[in-house]
């Protein structure tokens, strides 16, 4: 059986907050249908992030069913929320940008940059992309920090998704006539997370053996003066302050640590905290990343370079997102199988793709082409992207795969589900942007969240645990939809990473 059906529901990102409901009915449809880049951003952490450029042009080759001719493209830009200014820098415009007609709260500066204010702006007469020439637009946003609510003095900062936050949103629709032929929705959820000044002594966490000496992400469950905190995000490299953490009483007390080049650490039942300041919780960041044994098979010699590349790419994508798994460490490149066995692999993989039925017995029953208790990854000569057969240690990557396809399939093998259209925290917005690697397709997938990394390591049905790779540390059953004191929200993500 292939993947379970997902439940409904770049580059670098710059989230925009959406307030109110202005814009056309089509805009509302686009907003519901297309991913919202929802990231909870603390204003204090905000750095300038580039949004992947928007290419002027249609999403499909003929623009739309019935789209007439090759007229220019108009943009409808909707900016809502605490956005002081949206700057759209145009590249490769053949003519002066002043030839484009602007309607609404926007003006050109002297550098082919359109400075757009809040509300709706129309930009008319853009040339759509051809193979020879593409106009690119690079957006940058400046937030209006004054419009983001300030926490009430004496009340804990809103770190865990409480309502003291404001959404900002930008919707850019590309139109031929009145038909939307392409769109981009970018959203952020902004809040303030003021950090009290550090007054020594303070309570601290000490990350020992942080292999990459990176700014690790720590989810803290503990008791503070405000009450129990759940998955409070802290950051640190070595020894760092966590302010005043009190004795547990009835609060859950644990720490999860996410770091490059280190396995995900979960320290349960922490008893280090007391009411006076000066506590120290040491966390040993060993082992370094878990090393799942992976056998890589190719059915044609020509697939070797791709297979090596994509395994390396999967290692990068998982590790740099704090996944704690070393994809490269324990890889065995199996020799080219016999023609007969290669045909068996190709045909079996093709049948799974075509039928949706995970009939892989012809592979798993043949020790010449399958190694038990190891993840077997087959690069096959079949025209599909990829699939994973649940609980079978079989992944197939086809000829139309992208560099991130293997990372996506490994995500499934480590229990992750698709992330399009899900709203597990029931806040009315998609939990994930389409830059998440578990989005079921599309361009620009490069990220896992810490909530996903937690599950990849700790879910008992993760192939890390099923194959006996993890030899120390707890397991914890956290399906993607579970949001509790024991299971962080799957979309919980520290930004910047």
């Amino acid at each position, binding site marked *: 059986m292939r993947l379970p059906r997902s439940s409904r529901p770049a580059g670098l990102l710059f989230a925009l907050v959406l307030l109110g409901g202005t814009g056309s009915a089509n805009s509302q449809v686009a907003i519901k249908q297309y991913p919202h880049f929802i990231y909870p951003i603390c204003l204090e952490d905000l750095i300038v992030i580039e949004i*992947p450029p928007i290419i002027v042009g249609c*999403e499909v*080759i*003929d623009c739309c069913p019935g789209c007439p001719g090759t007229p220019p493209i108009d943009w409808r830009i909707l900016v809502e929320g605490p956005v002081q200014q949206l700057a759209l820098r145009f590249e490769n415009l053949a003519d002066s940008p002043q030839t484009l007609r602007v309607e609404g709260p926007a003006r050109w500066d002297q550098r082919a940059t359109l400075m757009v204010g809040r509300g709706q702006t129309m930009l008319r007469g853009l040339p759509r992309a051809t193979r020879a020439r593409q106009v690119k637009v690079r957006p940058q946003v400046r937030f209006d920090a004054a419009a983001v609510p300030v926490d009430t003095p004496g009340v804990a900062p809103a770190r865990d998704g409480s309502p003291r936050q404001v959404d900002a949103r930008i919707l850019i629709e590309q139109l031929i*006539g009145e038909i939307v032929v392409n769109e981009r929705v970018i959203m952020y959820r902004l809040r303030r997370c003021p950090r009290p000044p550090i007054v020594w002594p303070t309570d601290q966490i000490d990350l020992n053996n942080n292999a990459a000496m990176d700014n690790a992400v720590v989810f803290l469950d503990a008791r503070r003066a405000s009450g129990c905190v759940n998955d409070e995000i802290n950051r640190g490299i070595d020894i760092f302050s966590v302010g005043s953490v009190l004795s547990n009483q009835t609060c859950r007390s644990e720490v999860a640590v996410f770091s490059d080049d280190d396995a995900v650490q979960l320290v349960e039942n922490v008893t280090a905290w007391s009411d006076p300041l000066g506590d120290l919780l040491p966390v040993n960041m060993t082992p370094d990343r878990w090393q799942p044994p992976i056998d890589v098979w190719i059915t044609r010699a020509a697939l070797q370079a791709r297979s090596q*590349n994509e395994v390396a790419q999967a290692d990068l994508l998982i590790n740099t997102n704090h996944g704690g798994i070393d994809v490269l460490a324990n890889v065995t490149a199996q020799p080219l199988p016999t023609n007969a066995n290669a045909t068996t692999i190709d045909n079996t993989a093709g049948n799974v793709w075509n039928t949706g039925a995970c009939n892989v017995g012809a592979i798993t029953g043949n020790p010449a082409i399958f190694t038990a208790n190891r993840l077997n990854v087959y690069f096959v000569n079949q025209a599909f992207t990829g699939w994973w057969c649940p609980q079978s240690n079989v992944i197939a990557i086809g000829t*139309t795969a992208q560099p991130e396809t293997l990372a996506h399939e490994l995500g499934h093998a480590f229990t992750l589900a698709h992330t399009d259209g899900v709203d597990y925290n029931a806040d009315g917005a998609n939990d994930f942007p389409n830059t998440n690697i578990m989005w*079921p*397709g599309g361009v*620009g997938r490069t990220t896992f969240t810490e909530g996903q990394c937690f599950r990849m390591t700790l879910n008992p049905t993760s192939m890390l645990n099923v194959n006996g790779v993890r030899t120390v540390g707890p397991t914890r059953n956290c399906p993607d939809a579970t949001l509790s004191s024991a299971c962080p929200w799957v979309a919980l993500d520290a930004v910047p990473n």
Partner: protein
Amino acid sequence: MIAVAAGCQRSEVEVALSQEASAQVRRTIVRWLECEECTDGELEAVLKVGRVGVPTLAATLIEGPAPARLEEQREHLAGLYRQQVEYARSHPRAAPRMSESEYLAVYTANLVARYRVRSAMALERFGGPEAAQALERALALPLRDDERGVIAAAAARVRR
């Protein structure tokens, strides 16, 4: 309501589509073209929108992804490659096994192939003269083996 202007599209079916419906047909087709495992009924959704999607699928079969989509992909691939090179400084085993130009060429070609293959699969299910014509035209193009295999099989089934 937007009516398909006669003569602007060679289509078996002249359909009047609302602006919203036209955008929705596009999104449905793109979900099928882009899906990884395609286990969420993406192809069935395309079939459900009806023959109004056939011209887009036929055009995609012949011409591949839109230029804007290809450029988005190129930007994404270039960024991934740069990231891989940087990562390999501290993780030498993860060094790319291709040059940047090769990398861009391989995965761009894979995207084009995916779009063609998915279009062929959908056109096969639709059947009819427009689909058959597009599949035959595609076979005259320079295709990769994997593309040709799927398109040829689809064309043969539609001919029957």
